C-alpha cells in the first residue's frame, strides 16, 4: 500500500455531488444522521486534508451509519477503520493534525470515549497553548451522546461537562437537522479542536431541509453559519428555557404546552457550549426576567450549573425569580425501563415554570 497524492483526490466534483443530493432531497425530508453524513462527504470534497477514521466507520458506515458510503465513495485512505483503541484513535489524530491533516474521528459511544480522555485533556486541548500557537490541532472528535433511545449501560452518558471544563477544546452540540449539517462543517473547518456531541436520539429525526442549498450557502460563506451563537428555537416573552442538544425538543414541547395555558416561553438552543454565547442568553433573560436551564446530564457540577451561575452574575437585576434547573438526577444513567423517570420531561419543566414566582 503506497499512497500517493492523487489518491487523496476523490473522483467526484462538488457540483455533481450537490446535484445528486439535491435530487434526493427534493421530495423527502432529511434525517439528522443524513445531514451529518452529507456534511462529512461535503468536507471530504472541499478539503483534501480531511480524513475520517474510527471503529466500524469504514465498510459498515458506523454503528449509527453516520459515515455510510464514505469509504466506497472516497476510498479507504480518506475514511477507514482503526483497531479498537480510543486513545489510539485520538492520539493518532493528534499526530495527523500536527502533520497537516484535518482528522474527523468517531468515538462509538459517549462512555467509550473515556479511554481517550488523557489524550484529549493533556494533548488535544493543550497542544496549541504548549507550543505558543505553533501547532494547532484542527480535529473533530464526534461523540454520539445522551439517552432517550433505550440504550443499555455505558451507552447513554451525557459527558459534555468533562470536555467543557477543559480549556482549549470547543464543544458543540446541534439539535436540529440544519445545525447538524452546518455545525459539523464549521467544526471541521475550525482551526481549534472540537468535541462534537451528537444527541443519538435525534439521529432518525426528520426535517424538510435543502442540504444542497445549505451547502452552497455555507461554501459561499453566506448567512448559513452558526459561528458559536445560541439560537432562538422558539420566541417567547414570559420566561426563557435555556437548553441544548437532546433537551431542545423537550423544551419545545414544554413551551407548546405552556402556550396553551397562556404562558409564553422562549426556548434558547445554546448550540456551542464552548465558546459560550453570554450575549444572546443574557439578552433573552433580561427580556423575559425568568429562566430555567434544561439539560439531560446530571445536574451537579454540570454545564447547566455553569449557565445558571453566568446568568445570575450578569442578569441579577432583571430577574424576577431564581434561575432554576431541570436536569437528570445525580445517578448513573438508569436502565432502559427507567430512563423516563430520569430524563427531564415537559411536565417536569412545566412544574419548574410554576415555581418562577409568578404572583410577584
Amino acid at each position, binding site marked *: *500500500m503506497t499512497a500517493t497524492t492523487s489518491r*487523496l483526490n476523490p473522483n467526484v466534483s462538488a457540483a455533481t455531488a450537490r446535484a445528486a443530493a439535491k435530487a434526493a432531497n427534493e421530495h423527502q425530508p432529511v434525517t439528522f444522521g443524513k445531514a451529518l453524513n452529507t456534511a462529512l462527504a461535503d468536507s471530504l470534497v472541499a478539503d483534501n486534508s480531511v*480524513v475520517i477514521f474510527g471503529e466500524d466507520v469504514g465498510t459498515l458506515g458506523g454503528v449509527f451509519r453516520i459515515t455510510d458510503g464514505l469509504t466506497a465513495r472516497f476510498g479507504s485512505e480518506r475514511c477507514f477503520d482503526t483497531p479498537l483503541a480510543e486513545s489510539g484513535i485520538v*492520539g*493518532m489524530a493528534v499526530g495527523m493534525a500536527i502533520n497537516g491533516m484535518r482528522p474527523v474521528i468517531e468515538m462509538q459511544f459517549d462512555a467509550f470515549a473515556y479511554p481517550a480522555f*488523557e489524550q484529549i485533556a493533556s494533548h488535544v486541548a493543550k497542544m496549541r497553548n504548549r507550543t505558543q500557537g505553533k501547532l494547532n490541532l484542527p480535529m473533530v472528535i464526534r461523540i454520539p451522546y445522551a439517552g432517550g433511545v433505550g440504550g443499555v449501560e455505558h451507552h447513554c452518558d451525557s459527558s459534555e461537562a468533562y470536555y467543557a471544563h477543559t480549556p482549549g477544546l470547543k464543544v458543540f452540540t446541534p439539535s436540529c437537522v440544519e445545525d447538524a449539517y452546518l455545525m459539523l462543517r464549521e467544526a471541521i473547518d475550525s482551526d481549534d479542536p472540537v468535541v462534537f456531541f451528537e444527541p443519538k436520539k435525534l439521529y432518525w429525526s426528520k426535517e424538510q431541509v435543502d442540504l444542497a442549498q445549505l451547502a452552497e450557502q455555507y461554501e459561499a460563506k453566506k448567512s448559513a453559519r452558526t459561528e458559536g451563537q445560541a439560537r432562538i428555537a422558539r420566541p417567547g416573552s414570559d420566561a426563557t428555557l435555556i437548553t441544548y442538544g437532546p433537551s431542545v425538543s423537550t423544551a419545545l414541547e414544554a413551551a407548546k404546552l405552556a402556550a396553551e395555558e397562556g404562558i409564553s416561553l422562549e426556548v434558547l438552543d445554546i448550540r456551542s457550549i464552548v465558546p459560550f454565547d453570554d450575549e444572546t442568553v443574557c439578552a433573552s433573560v433580561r427580556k423575559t426576567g425568568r429562566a430555567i436551564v434544561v439539560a439531560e446530564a446530571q445536574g451537579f457540577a454540570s454545564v447547566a450549573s455553569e449557565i445558571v451561575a453566568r446568568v445570575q452574575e450578569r442578569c441579577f437585576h432583571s430577574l424576577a425569580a431564581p434561575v432554576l434547573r431541570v436536569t437528570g438526577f445525580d445517578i448513573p444513567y438508569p436502565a432502559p425501563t427507567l430512563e423516563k423517570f430520569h430524563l427531564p420531561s415537559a411536565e417536569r419543566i412545566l412544574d419548574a415554570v410554576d415555581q418562577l414566582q409568578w404572583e410577584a
Partner: protein
Amino acid sequence: MSTEAHADRISDVSKKFGITPEDYMLPARHMINLLNPDGTLRPEDQQGTEPGHEYPLPSPARLLEAYAALVTGRRVNDQNSALVRQGRMAVYPSSHGQEACQIAAALCLGENDWLFPTYRDTVAVLTKGVAPMEVMTSFRGEWHCGYDPKAYNCAPMSTPLTTQLLHAVGVAHAAKLRGEDTVVVAMCGDGATSEGDFHEALNFAAVFNLPVIFFVQNNKYAISVPLSQQSAAPSLAHKAVGYGMAGERVDGNDLMALMAIMTRAVRMAREGNGPLLIEAHTYRMQAHTNADDDKRYREDSEVQEWIAKDPVTRMKAYLDDAGLLTDSTVAKITADAESVAKTLRDGMNQEANTDPRELFEHVYSAKTPQLAEQQAMLVDELDREEA
C-alpha cells in the same frame, strides 16, 4: 490491509535476510554490542549479531560526528544539573549515562524525519537541532515548550508517558497518505512500556505499516520501580513480535552499536518495511530528577558498576586507539561542548521574560469572549499594581 498482506510483508523482508519471519521479528539471542566497556572492539562472534541481525560498522567520520555530539550531550547534562543546584532552573531530568542513546536516536534521522522525545530526552532534542535555550524553556518553569516543532521536525518533550508515541504514529500516517518520505523516531522509557498507549501505538503502527521506530531506553528504573515490576517479558524487545514487527536489543552505552542499529532501522523503515522496536540497555546514573533521592531504592555499588560502563569514556577509548582523536579534534570537540554550556549558563542567568498577559493568547486560535474578559481583568490588576 488483510491478515495475509501483513504476513506477506513480514515474510518478504525476512526472505531478504534469508531467515524465517519468526527469526526476523524476534530479537537476536544476545544483545547487540560492538565495543567493550574499555573501548576495544569485540570479536565478530561476540557482537551478538546473527543472520538477519547484522549491522555494518559506522564510518570513522560518522563515529567522530557522533562522539562530538556525545561530549556535548554529557556537558549539557552536567551543566543543566549544576544550574538546577544553583536555583537557575526549576527541574532537570538528566540523561547522564544515557547520552549514547540520545545521540543515536536523533543523529540517525534525516532532515524531513521527525523525533518524538520525552522529558528525559533534552540531549536528543538538541542533537536534532533545536537551539539550546529553546530546549530548556519548559524546564525553566515557563508555560510553553519553547520551540517551534515544525521548524525542527521535533515534537514538544512529552511528560504524560507514551502519549507521544501515538502522535508519532499520526505524523507517519499523514506523511504516508501524502506519499511523503518521513521516518519517525518515538522515544520512551522502560517503565513507560507498561502504559496502554505504548501498546496502542505499536499496534497502530504495525497495522497501518508505518515507518516508526520505537526507541526504548531501558535505564532499569521508572523513578524507583525496577523493570522486574513492570514486565515479565523475556525482554522489552520481545514485545515486538506480538505486534508483527521486528525487535532488537542493543547495548545502550555503546555508541557504535547504537549508531549501527539505528542507521539500519531508519533505512528499513524508509524502505517501507514497517515499524521497529529497539530496546537500548542503559542506566540512569543519577536520580530521576533533582527532586528524587535514589538512595531510597538502589545501592551505590550498582551505580558504580554502571559508571564503569560509561558511554563517553568507552567511545573515547575506541577513537583514541583507532588514532582518530587528534589533539586539534579533541580541542574542537571540547570547545564546541563548552560553547553550548556557556550559552545555557548565560541564558539561564538572565531572568525569563514572560508576560502573564500572554497566558490567554494561545488557548484557542481566536480568544473566546470569556478569555478576553479574564485577560482584561488580569491586565487591570497588573496596571493597578504598576500604578
